């Protein structure tokens, strides 16, 4: 198709898609009592308003983000015309993320047409465009995470460290990427000779190469610097709402997590009774996303490993809403080209059908509860959340097997990538 031959076509379409949705949203907000704008956007912007009046962003109830986000959206307080500034920022974040996806794929040696096709999974995805233009910040986070991956693959360690620290400050979960990136940054990747060491000290010394040390220090400094600054500015409420809330929260209103009904049940009972599996939920989640997957896969294919980590984190999380799906959607264009989901279309279609089907089943039960008032908690919601969980686990299994089986495209492409870069330079 001629459409995918030019970045101009794809990016213009992606831009127009977002512009149309943004304008449509303005129209709907002005004329209908049902709002296009996400409630979260009202939360962000009123937190910005509090900051502009010299107050704490946490004066707005349910603002559970870093003050940095409210700072970024300060222009929304300049007047009614500026109200959509944040949505534009998030949509631009989408486009930047898409641009970086194309860059990463091209550096792997993929043809432009193919790279544009795969990046369209993100760029032309109506769900992604809708979420950003409704004013949800997930797209911005996606841009940060892809920029982090791009910087790592480009060996821009300082930039990668700063982005990692920033992303973790923003949403905590990108901390798992730190594990895979550090493990991936071995001598081979850095283009240095592999030194064999027999002593433990030697092995440790080999492991602590300058890139790893640099990335760790820069990301820690960025993360702690931001935290200390925010703590000085807003004190305990910053810690409470940005971080501690996520540990202690018990607002288990129905969501896709397999633990959801268990949390409802156990939170309403006495602390003593029951086995309390839910208090151990972080073990499988963190074991897979922060330990097993990074160490067993990252050296083979870093982008696909980050996808698997995110997938594991979201699948095994105690809370799971559809916004979290964006966290892994951004990695799909980087994984799918070498996946068995594409090489075996029957598998790919079954996986997609199961993912959509079990989600639809859950949504059907959720609708009956939320709007019809039917008690569908058990078996309806519970069983469909477990089926959705099993579908996700199935997909996760396919991803990690693919990563293991495939001769890593990125790992292999180090030379290729560098050579293609050289070629580009030559062309320029």
């Amino acid at each position, binding site marked *: 198709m001629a459409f995918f031959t030019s970045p101009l076509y794809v990016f213009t379409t992606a831009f127009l898609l977002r512009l149309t949705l943004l304008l449509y949203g303005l129209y709907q907000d002005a004329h209908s009592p049902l709002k296009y704008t996400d409630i979260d956007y009202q939360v962000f912007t009123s937190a910005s308003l509090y900051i502009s009046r010299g107050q704490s962003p946490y004066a707005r*109830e349910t603002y559970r983000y870093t003050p940095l986000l409210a700072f970024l959206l300060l222009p929304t307080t300049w007047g009614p015309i500026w109200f959509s500034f944040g949505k534009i920022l998030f949509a631009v974040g989408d486009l930047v993320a898409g641009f970086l996806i194309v860059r990463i794929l091209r550096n792997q040696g993929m043809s432009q047409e193919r790279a544009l096709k795969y990046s369209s999974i993100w760029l032309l995805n109506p769900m992604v465009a809708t979420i950003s233009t409704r004013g949800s910040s997930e797209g911005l986070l996606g841009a940060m995470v892809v920029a982090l991956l791009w910087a790592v693959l480009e060996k821009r360690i300082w930039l990668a460290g700063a982005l990692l620290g920033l992303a973790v400050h923003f949403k905590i979960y990108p901390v798992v990427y730190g594990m895979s990136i550090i493990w991936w940054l071995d001598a081979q990747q850095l283009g240095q000779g592999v030194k064999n060491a027999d002593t433990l000290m030697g092995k440790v010394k080999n492991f602590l190469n300058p890139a790893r040390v640099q990335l760790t220090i820069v990301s820690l400094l960025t993360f702690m610097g931001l935290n200390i600054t925010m703590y000085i500015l807003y004190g305990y409420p910053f810690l409470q709402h940005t971080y501690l809330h996520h540990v202690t929260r018990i607002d288990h209103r129905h969501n896709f997590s397999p633990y959801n009904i268990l949390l409802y049940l156990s939170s309403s009972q006495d602390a003593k009774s029951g086995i309390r599996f839910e208090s151990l939920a972080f073990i499988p989640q963190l074991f897979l996303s922060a330990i097993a997957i990074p160490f067993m896969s990252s050296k083979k294919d870093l982008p696909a490993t980050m996808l698997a980590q995110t997938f594991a984190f979201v699948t095994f999380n105690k809370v799971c809403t559809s916004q979290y799906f964006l966290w892994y959607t951004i990695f799909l264009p980087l994984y799918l080209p070498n996946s068995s989901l594409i090489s075996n279309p029957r598998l790919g279609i079954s996986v997609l059908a199961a993912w959509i089907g079990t989600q639809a089943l859950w949504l059907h039960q959720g609708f009956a509860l939320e709007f019809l*008032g039917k008690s*569908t908690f058990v078996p309806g919601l519970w069983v469909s959340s477990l089926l959705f969980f099993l579908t996700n686990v199935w997909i996760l299994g396919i991803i990690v097997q693919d990563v293991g*089986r495939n001769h890593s495209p990125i790992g292999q492409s180090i030379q290729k990538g560098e050579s293609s870069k050289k070629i580009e330079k030559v062309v320029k």
Partner: protein
Amino acid sequence: MRQRITFIQEPEYSTDPKTIHVTKNEKISTLSAKNVIAAREDRITFGFEELPQELYRLLKGCHELHIRWVSEREYSTLGPMASFTKLPVERFSLSAATQYYTPLSSLKDGFQTYLENKICSRSNSMCLSRVQELDTAASLDIDYDTISHALTITAFWPPTQWDIDLQNTNPKERMEVGILSVVPPQEREELSLGGFLTVVGEDTKPSPTLFSFPARHHSLPQTFSTSFNSPTGLHPTLKLSISASEPPFPPDERSCSLHAHLTLPRALFPDKYQFSDPLYLASKNLSALHHITSPIDLEAPSYTLTTWGSTLLLALAPPTLGPSFTAEIPLHLRYLPPSHNSSTYLEFAYPTLFWACPEDEGTKFPINPFDRTNVGYDGLFGPRTMFYHLSPEASEGGRLVNGLEVPVLGLEASGWVEWGTGAVVAVGFAWVVWCLLVGWGGGYGGKKEEGRKKRE
């Protein structure tokens, strides 16, 4: 102890003073009358030193205490007691500092038992029978403040037929009895009463009286009923059906606005951020949110909260066309504890609906002997505001409550949840680990290959 007992009658039922028998003796003075059809208010004031020890100690630590209780039964009212019709099933205390609300369907077990044991002496049969009469009371107020240093209990009964037989056994304690009829007032915002007053123990016959006073609360012929839009789901919408949209005064004469005051249990809550968009408010025939309890957690399940609930005051926007209209108030349900039949029935009091009319002629209300303040919403308006109340119409069973079924987790069905979730997560986890190991094995070969390449 001082007592003021007032019977208020419709003009057509006015009692002939000849049928009121008054006796005066050194020990026992009495007042009696048969077949008096009237609403009744008893107001008893206790001096600080007359109170039982524990009450004395409790009140010593208080600056002000106001308790309001209203029966959940639907009943009719007469002029001065207009405000008594609203806020059913409630025990309400309001001061600048704290506020607490809990449903209480009857006074019988707690309050009446306490009065019988602590206030009445065993032998005093009149005291005991007066306490028993509280069975049928429509409302009860208890007030204390440090300035008056006195505790006042005021009870109100809706119109019924009374055989009055009152005794005063202690001439030092004042007992004033009024049998009064409602008289058409001179001014619209006034109330006029005419009839007979007797101080039992001092007077030998009733003395005629006629007086008028401005009143804070008035009744309107307009009525309202409330119900939920069906299905209620987890976001029930409370629908107010109001019989007329006409204000009590023409707008050019005085500007009045229609308000709804809701007292909600913690299981049901309003989201204040929902009431900020003018388009949204207009679509529900609302105009503004004037007051809401703060803070209200928008996420927590009911059983983790320690607060009792919330109140909110909304201004309604009656449409200019059409006599009757409906307004809708969006509410949200919290998760409630799991139950055996997968649902929990939730009840809460009818809202109070009134037109609030600011009075700007320097009117004050201290001379109204039946004035009633601290009813929950009056403090949210200026001191010179008049309230014109719409009468609630109970939808079923004569009770002024709204009820709805809340879906909850069924306890029977959830026996498997704990183990089932644990097992499925374990299987999922094991599968991923197995896939990782399979992949890793495959990858190992790749590494060896690379190693070989290097050697080459």
